[in-house]
Structures are given as structure tokens and as C-alpha cells.
């Protein structure tokens, strides 16, 4: 559709994103992007014994940004924090399929959202 292929994973996730919404008392929140670039992502994680047991997101951004965060939430669920940190934007990109090169930054931003959430979680943990 438009600059994305019809029936692609990307459009599927854009049209029916997984894990959208708020989370009650999340253990970690990742916040990346800004108004200037036009993409803002919020990632909420539930963490038990260093395992991500639930993930939710909210995104202001284009179809690729929304799809990237949707895929990310699928990817992190059930993963240990150390394994989750290995999730790269490349993995997100591969899961979404073909997209124009100028959309790669959306996948990077999603990967950054996860790193930001885990970083904040660890900082919080240390101050406990």
C-alpha cells in the first residue's frame, strides 16, 4: 500500500498492531523520539525475575514506526533482559519485510525504545 507492499507484515502490524495500550504499574518504561522528528514511542514492560512477562506500547508516528513497535513487543515477551538487549533493529526490519530505506530509522527507534526501558529498569534496580 503506498510506499509499502500490500499484504506485507508491515501493513499487517500497522493495521492490527499487537499489544497496543497502557499498562498498569509497568516495571519499566522506554521513551524515545521527539516531536521534531515526528516519531514518539512509549514502551511499557512487566518484568518478573529478570524475564519480560508482558509488553505494551503506544506510538505516534508513521506506519513503519507503529509496525516496528508492534513487532518489538512480540519479540520481547518471554525473553530475559540480557537476551532482550540483543534484539537489533535488523531483526525488527527482517520481521517487517521490505520497506524503503528512509524508513529504517523507525526500526532503530523501536530497538532504542527497548534499550531505554531496560536501562531505566536497571538504574531503578540499583537505587533500590
Amino acid at each position, binding site marked *: 500500500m*503506498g510506499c509499502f507492499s500490500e499484504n506485507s507484515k508491515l501493513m499487517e502490524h500497522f493495521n492490527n498492531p499487537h499489544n497496543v495500550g497502557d499498562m498498569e504499574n509497568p516495571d519499566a518504561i522506554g521513551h524515545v523520539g521527539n516531536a521534531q522528528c515526528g516519531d514518539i514511542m512509549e514502551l511499557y514492560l512487566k518484568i518478573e525475575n529478570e524475564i519480560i512477562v508482558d509488553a505494551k506500547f503506544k506510538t505516534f508516528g508513521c*506506519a513503519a514506526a507503529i509496525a516496528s513497535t508492534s513487532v518489538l513487543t512480540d519479540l520481547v515477551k518471554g525473553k530475559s533482559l540480557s537476551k532482550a538487549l540483543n534484539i537489533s533493529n535488523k531483526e525488527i526490519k527482517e520481521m517487517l519485510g521490505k520497506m524503503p530505506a528512509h524508513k529504517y530509522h523507525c526500526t532503530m527507534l523501536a530497538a532504542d525504545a527497548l534499550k531505554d526501558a531496560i536501562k531505566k529498569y536497571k538504574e531503578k534496580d540499583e537505587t533500590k
Partner: protein
Amino acid sequence: MKKVYLDYAATTPVHKKVKKAMEPYFSDNFANPATLHQFGQDAKIGLDKARKRVANFIGAKSKEVIFTSGGSESDNLALKGVFFKLTQNKDFTPHIITSAIEHSAIINTCNFLKKRGAKVSYIKPDKNGLINPDDIKKEINKNTTIVSIMHANNEVGTIEPIKEIGKIIANVKKNRQVNNNDTPIYFHTDAVQTLGHIPINIDDLGVDMLTLSAHKLYGPKGVGVLFVREGVELEPLIHAGEQERERRGSTHNTPGIIGLAKAIDIADSEMEEEKERLINLRNYFLQEIKNSIKRVQLNGHPNKRLPNNLNVTIKGVEGEALLMSLDEAGIAVSTGSACSSTRLIPSHVLMAMGMSHLRAHSSIRFSMGKYTKKKDIDYVVKQLKPIVKRLREISPLK
């Protein structure tokens, strides 16, 4: 699926009558109008007639019309042509005044000329996209040689006070004459968006150069016009044959030029009625959007705007996501959001109007045309409501 095209400001379909008028000039009356034999002369008759038609429509003489490959070339020719002429064998630094909301054909040409030594002032509009003629007046100095302000903005549709600016330039010309300053000052306007929507008369506007394009008014792509008032000297960009009084070489695009003239014919007879229809339709459209969706803001001037342009910000919704969802519903629109470009910077027009990044990223442009009907608008509004609701639910912005 129903299809609704609301991107007429980007381009329009070629009118059936235009296509029919062009048809003979492809394979029957095909000859080069610059040749002397009867074949060529037959083509030249069509070309001359078309030139006269275009000239008449804007109140110009035939010899003041230069046919080009489109609006962008015309803009380039106006600015570079004058710049090259004035700096030829002369140690002179021309000053150019333009606006911060021009089409890229003007902005990027100015940026290029800046690298070549020109001084350029970019005048900012007010929050409605309107240029204040006084701001231009204040910026004029003894080296100012070109003032280029668009007739109407392509994104937000604001119609600029060209006539008022024309009067200021006319005064500067008079003063220079009195003071024996022989530096010329030329006023150029890019009227690509207004052609066929509102009347254009070069003397009424007080312009020395004016850009037109065929494909925005149901004519073919690849055809443009630069009106150049008698006495204005410019260097050609395309050095080749003697076409266009040696100001633009290359064999004429006869079918295209015939198509432009026909498109102008049609616009001339329908413009008044069509203008009213589109204004009513656009006002209805905005009202319907506002009735069904909260937190919607109009971008651009409330009434000094192109009849067919509706640009709104729908808060909390990113423009490209909205565009994509509308596309899935068969609706074609355009956005000033960054994601649509490779640069990630939102529209320079919206930013120059002093808009916040968020408001610019949440902007969407609907541009209507000849084939837009009320039932199309009703369909779009019906589709828009759930799409906005869904995207707002995904958005973290309140």
C-alpha cells in the same frame, strides 16, 4: 473499493478534450514547427495559435510567452536567467528577495544562486501563511534585482498579496529611474497553483515574470510557461536552437503546448462557476470534519485561500500514518509530515508559519478538483472518523 483522489494540487488527470486536441499533433501534424516546409509550417500554425491563447489568458503578448518543460524549469529560468545576465562580465552582487514558503523550485534555485554569490532574503509569512508586503518593502536595497513571491501556496493554499507587492516594486522602479540607478528590479511570481482557479492578469498583478504549468489544470505533464515581460533580459538555461526567441532552445513539445492551450480554454469557460462550487464544497468538507472529529485545526488563511485546498491538523495523529490508512480506503491525500520525505524535517512551509513540529507532523492536505463530488467528501469524512479514532488510540499523545 471506492476511490477518491484528493491530491489535485500534486497533479490532475488530463481532460478528455485536452487529449483529443493533442492527438493530431503526435503522428499527423507531427513536424518540427521550426522547419520551413509545409509540414513544419502546419505545426507552426497550431503552435502560434496556442501561444496566442496562453498569452491572451494572462493579458500578455505572444512574444512574451516562453514555453518550457514545466513549472520548475520556468522558475529556474526566471531566477538563474536574470542572475546570469546581470552578473555577466560584471562585478555585481544581485540581491534576491523571496519567501520562506516557496516551492522547492524557487527555494533550491535561490540556495544555488547563493552559492554563486547572490544575496538572498527569505521573507517569513504570518501564522496564516500570508506574506506582508511591508516586509518586502523593508528588505529592498539598491542591489535588489529579483523579487519572487508565489501567487498561492501549494501546501496551505494561502493566496499572497501579489498586486500590493507589484505596486511596491513599481515604485522602486520609478525611484531608480529618478535616481539614475540603472540596476533593474524584476518581480516574478510562481502562479502554478492559481492557474485555472483564480484569474491571472500580468498587468493587474504588476509582475515582470510569471510561471505556469499545464498539469495542474487538466493539461499534460512536461509543459510549462514563463511569461517574460518585454524588456526583461535573461540568459537562456538551454543553449540550443533559436526557439523561443533564443531564450529556450530545443524542439517544441507541440502536442503538450496544444494541450496547455486547450486546458486554458476549458478553464476559462468554467472557472467562475467551478470556483464557487469548490469553495462551497471545501467549506462543507471542513465543517463535516469538525462535526465528526474533535481537535481539528485549519492550516492556512481562513478565506484568502485557493478554492480547492483544505489543509488541517488533526491533533495526536501523525500525518503519514493517516495518509496510509486513507490510502487503504482508496483515498489519496498528502501530508506535511516528515516521514513522507527522506529528510525527516516537516514541511518548510508549515515550519515557516511558526507551527510547532507536532502540529506540522499532524497536518494533512486535501486538494479537490473538477471531479470531486459531495458524495466523495461524505465518503472521506465517514472513513476518516474511525481511522483517526484508531490512530489516536495507538498514540501516546493526549
